[in-house]
């Protein structure tokens, strides 16, 4: 509208400013805007101010401290970013700006796409196949490292390696690890190290950073150099959560450069202990073998001794047995034996005879005694006498003699002659 039409309503300054503000907030409000950071100036308060620009325009951005946690990247001059924020203006100064509520790196989408595309292409070619990954040698005393010679990653690796294994030969192929030309230098480093015949393993890597910082390790050039390497390659790029194309192409991925140093070689002390322990077992094994053999000899010796003694005993008893039998069979022996037998028979005979004799003698003696007892002569000693007539008739009764007859009486020691003077018969009671 022209000047006179506009004069219908005359604004107050604050009124106009307020309307501009409302217009911006209602009509535009919250937006995502991409541009390059410039004029970055942090404040002591912790709030940050910078400009977002492109070839022909510039907008002020205000990033309060509280919103910084929603930013995946911090402001840096020259950085391409995407800002999400509220478009507003300050009536007091009529400046419009964006109150930033979130910020991320711009072009990330493009990078992600390129990453996925290359990853698929190389995977399809078989560069990432498990089957072609080379095994790492157990004792790689000669290492090659492709990294920035002034970076912290190299120092970390050298420190870890020195602690684990003091005597290593390490060749460092210096290379830029970000920015233009970095991928070429990394690839060249791998190729250079491959030319040393006395080199066991190559490590490539760098410290943490943004996807853009690590981008050299996502380049095809590096992946192909790894693939072409005759020596095993360990890739150690960024932090644990960063995965790059070189990680997939390498023979081993380490989460960080320090981890690579731990994975590439064991501790020297552990190796020495392993060998020492085997040596001890070897010595013990021999000692046990010798002991076992010595025991076997002793056992056999005992057995031999026992067996021999038994055999000797047996033979000896056989010999003495034969000798005895031989002796027994000889004439002298026979004679002796027979004589002996006769003697024995004689003795037996004698014994039996004397036995008999004794018994007979006994009977005779006994009979003799009885006889003696009945011997008239014995009776005579007891007071009895035998009287005979002159004709010799023994007087048994009074009728055997007359008075006046001469009789002879035999006594034990002689006889007397007497004349019968009287005869008297005893009554029955007196007999």
């Amino acid at each position, binding site marked *: 509208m022209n000047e006179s039409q506009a004069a219908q309503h005359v604004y107050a300054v604050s009124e106009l400013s307020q309307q501009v503000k409302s217009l911006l907030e209602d009509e535009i409000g919250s937006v995502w805007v991409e541009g390059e950071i410039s004029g970055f100036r942090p404040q002591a308060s912790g709030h940050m101010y910078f400009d977002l620009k492109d070839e022909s325009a510039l907008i002020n951005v205000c990033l309060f401290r509280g919103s910084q946690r929603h930013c995946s990247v911090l402001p840096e001059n020259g950085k391409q970013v995407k800002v999400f924020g509220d478009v507003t203006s300050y009536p007091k100064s009529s400046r419009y700006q964006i109150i930033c509520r979130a910020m991320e790196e711009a072009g990330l989408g493009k990078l992600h796409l390129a990453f996925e595309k290359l990853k698929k292409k190389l995977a399809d070619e078989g560069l990432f196949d498990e089957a072609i990954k080379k095994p790492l040698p157990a*004792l790689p005393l000669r290492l090659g490292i492709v990294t920035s010679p002034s970076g912290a990653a190299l120092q970390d690796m050298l420190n870890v390696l020195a602690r684990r294994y003091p005597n290593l030969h390490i060749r460092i192929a210096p290379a830029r690890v970000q920015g233009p030309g970095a991928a070429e230098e990394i690839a060249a480093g791998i190729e*250079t190290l491959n030319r040393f015949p006395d080199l066991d393993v190559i490590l490539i890597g760098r410290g943490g950073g943004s996807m853009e910082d690590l981008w050299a390790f996502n380049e095809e050039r590096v992946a192909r150099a790894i693939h072409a390497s005759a020596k095993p390659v360990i890739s150690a790029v960024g932090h644990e959560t960063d995965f790059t194309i070189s990680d997939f192409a390498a023979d081993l991925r380490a989460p960080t450069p320090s981890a690579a140093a731990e994975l590439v070689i064991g501790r020297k002390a552990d190796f020495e202990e392993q060998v020492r322990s085997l040596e001890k077992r070897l010595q013990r094994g*021999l000692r046990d073998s010798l002991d076992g053999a010595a025991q076997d000899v002793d056992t056999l010796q005992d057995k031999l001794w026992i067996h021999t003694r038994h055999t000797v005993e047996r033979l000896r008893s056989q010999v003495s047995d034969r000798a005895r039998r031989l002796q027994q069979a000889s004439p002298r022996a026979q004679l002796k034996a027979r004589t002996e037998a006769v003697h024995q028979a004689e003795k037996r005979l004698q014994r039996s005879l004397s036995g008999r004799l004794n018994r007979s003698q006994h009977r005779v003696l006994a009979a003799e005694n009885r006889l003696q007892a009945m011997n008239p002569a014995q009776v005579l000693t007891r007071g009895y006498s035998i009287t005979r007539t002159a004709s010799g008739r023994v007087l048994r009764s009074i009728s055997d003699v007359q008075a006046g007859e001469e009789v002879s009486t035999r006594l034990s020691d002689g006889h007397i002659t007497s004349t019968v003077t009287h005869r008297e018969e005893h009554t029955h009671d007196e007999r």
Partner: protein
Amino acid sequence: MTKDNAPEEVSFEQGLKRLEEIVQSMEEGDLSLEASMAAFEEGMKLVKDCQGKLNEVEKKIEVLGQSDEA
């Protein structure tokens, strides 16, 4: 130095593996005395070889060729 992992034909790894085999066969106890002694001899030789390999290289750190760049 012709091979890429060690000057000798047998690598440290192979030597160690062979040494373990020998020790195991001795510990199983089925070897004759003669075989035990032969195994012991081979084993001790391997022990010496392995220890030698662990100390084969002298400590050396070198930055190759061209100019250093950040």
